[in-house]
């Protein structure tokens, strides 16, 4: 299986227990994120105007988001004029239905896919499978996930949790490849042999989009392998599924993002393959082009003044690579094709904070702020995390405790009394000056950490004594 949608099957804490215990995954992830983190740092440091670029990127996205109502019809008009067809999908089901119908109208039993998170979000592969159409992932890492019946765990590097040895075993088993070594060139060669045949024999391709330019109707896909380029140019029919927030107002805006995206995502100055197309052109590329514009909760996110900055996201994954929680828990713990810090704010907003599993995601952060520092479009992820936490329906025991603390803190006398009571209450728990076991909600803390005990005197008591000594 590949793809998988955005509905977490369990709360983050539960899901993370499994992934944290996977020693191989932990090693793979630590190695991969540390490497890419350092590379990004170097790639970004080369540009003296990086902060100005970030500001420009954020401003363009904010403008596009505030003008979606006029820009989307403008895009539709431009695409239509260039010989393409635009479809509007309110939700995942509608989008999958549109793609399946187009594929079926060409009698396709198999389609090739360009790496695309939007189609993973709507779980297109499963929807197509249910209609007897097999989707072949052509991005190397997506292919690894698909062949391994595994879920992607990273936006850009879906198989980041796997290492070379694991990939070799998989290709031997699933592709029957003769692989004496696990050298990257040998692994890529095995995938190439398999994929080339697919590119040449498949009639329908499905892609996502990194950007679409409203004024020209141009759609853009940015990639590293060239497999995307194969899908975008060889098959007769191309279907692109794109979230409505991927829109840019003007052609020149693309320049800003073609500078921001590669350095943030793969730490490259420029990505190897940038494909741009406008509608169809006789004798060059697909003869039929469909653009499916996907809402699936985005207009709801747009309505929220604080949350809407999430829609600036260009899916670069820089926030995943620097996130200490992602590095340990891994992408699968987030239960959505959007993992990491951006997933922790995007998934619950797309689904709504009433989703009992998705609403645990904003808590999957220590609020360290590393994600905001690297975000190329300056999404203040910690701010949105805190904001979304404020929309949680809390469990009663926690709510009672938090309200009690707030009440105690509302008055210095009550605070003083609370300290005194806690000092009395801690008595049996204190050994050698520390607390090694705490009950209930606090038990997770003392599982691996000692907790400090309250000293005999609080600061305010010491301060008063000092003043009395001084006064005397």
């Amino acid at each position: 299986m590949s793809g998988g949608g955005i509905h977490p099957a369990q709360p983050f804490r539960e899901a993370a227990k499994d992934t944290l215990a996977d020693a191989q995954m932990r090693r793979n992830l630590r190695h991969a994120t540390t490497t890419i983190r350092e590379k990004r740092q170097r790639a970004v440091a080369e540009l003296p105007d990086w902060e100005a670029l970030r500001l420009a990127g954020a401003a363009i996205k904010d403008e596009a988001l505030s003008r979606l109502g006029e820009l989307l019809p403008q895009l539709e008009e431009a695409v239509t004029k260039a010989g393409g067809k635009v479809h509007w999908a309110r939700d995942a089901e509608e989008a999958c239905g549109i793609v399946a119908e187009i594929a079926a109208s060409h009698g396709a039993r198999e389609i090739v896919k360009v790496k695309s998170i939007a189609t993973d979000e709507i779980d297109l592969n499963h929807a197509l499978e249910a209609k007897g159409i097999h989707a072949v992932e052509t991005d190397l890492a997506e292919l690894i996930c698909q062949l391994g019946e595994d879920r992607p765990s990273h936006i850009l590097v879906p198989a980041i949790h796997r290492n070379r040895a694991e990939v070799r075993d998989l290709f031997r088993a699933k592709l029957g490849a003769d692989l004496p070594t696990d050298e990257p060139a040998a692994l890529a060669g095995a995938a190439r042999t398999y994929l080339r045949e697919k590119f040449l024999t498949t009639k329908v391709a499905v892609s996502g989009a990194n950007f679409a330019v409203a004024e020209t109707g141009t759609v853009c896909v940015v990639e590293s392998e060239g497999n995307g380029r194969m899908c975008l140019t060889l098959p007769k029919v191309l279907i692109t599924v794109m979230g409505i927030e991927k829109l840019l107002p003007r052609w020149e805006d693309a320049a800003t993002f073609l500078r921001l995206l590669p350095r943030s995502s793969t730490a490259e100055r420029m990505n190897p393959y940038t494909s741009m197309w406008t509608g169809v052109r006789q004798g060059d590329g697909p003869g039929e082009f469909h653009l499916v514009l996907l809402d699936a909760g985005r207009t709801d996110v747009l309505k929220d003044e604080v949350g809407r900055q999430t829609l600036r996201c260009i899916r670069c994954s820089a926030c995943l690579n620097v996130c200490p929680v992602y590095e340990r828990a891994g992408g699968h713990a987030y239960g959505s094709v959007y993992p990491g810090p951006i997933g922790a704010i995007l998934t619950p907003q797309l689904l709504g904070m009433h989703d009992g599993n998705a609403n645990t995601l904003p808590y999957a952060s220590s609020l360290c702020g590393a994600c905001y520092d690297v975000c190329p479009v300056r999404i203040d992820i910690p701010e949105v995390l805190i904001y979304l936490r404020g929309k949680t329906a809390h469990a009663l025991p926690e709510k009672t405790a938090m309200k009690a603390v707030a009440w105690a803190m509302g008055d210095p006398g009550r605070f003083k009394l609370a300290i005194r009571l806690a000092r009395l209450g801690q008595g049996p728990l204190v050994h050698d000056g520390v607390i090694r076991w705490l009950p209930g909600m606090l038990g997770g803390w003392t599982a691996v950490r000692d907790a400090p005990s309250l000293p005999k005197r609080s600061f305010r008591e010491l301060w008063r004594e000092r003043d009395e000594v001084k006064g005397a």
Partner: protein
Amino acid sequence: MTIDLFVTCVNDALFPETGMATARLLERLGHTVRFDERQTCCGQMHLNSGYPKEAIGLVRRFVEIFEGAEAVVAPSGSCVAMVRELYPRAAEWAGDHELAERARGLKVYELSEFLTGVLGLEDVGAYYPHHVTYHPTCHAMRLLKVGDAPLRLLRKVRGMTLVELPQAEGCCGFGGTFSVKNPETSAAMLADKVRAVMDTRAEVCTAGDNSCLMHIGGGLSRLRSGARAVHLAEILAGTEASA
């Protein structure tokens, strides 16, 4: 200068010595330190844990107590970040624009940025004969952007050997209620931090925030590592007489 000490609730209840050390240090530098007994908590835990309504009451209290102060100094990066970065936003989210404006007018400083930035000091006359490693806490580093201010202060401490902490900028995994709500992931982060501290062979890990130090120190203590966590203020307040 008359300095208002915001000791923070965590220090008040659990680490009073940090508050006393902060006061001793500022007084040694020739300033008058006031402690307004009405103060309690900045509300960070409530805002960050999803209780904005409860937090806003504490925001208002803080603003009313410290409005008009010449300088409020707190030995905690995250509490100061809460006041400076999050108070205005929390007030705006609650629809209280006036409170947001009043919050923007507060003059609240984290100890190391106050010493280096406002007082223009690096050598505060401290003596601390130990091997020490420094952990930059996330909120001081990323929200307050204190940069190397704590390190500049530490480098001038006499008798001390400062050892560089590997992967210093990685979060220790505390994150307030994060360590309670996701204790396993938090523990995995702590494991790496504790390993880094132990790799330095320093006997003291210092930082500008006792909440992070409570976490790191809790791990060091559980492992009987022999290393302990000490707040920056206590090092800077150290003298030959106190050693």
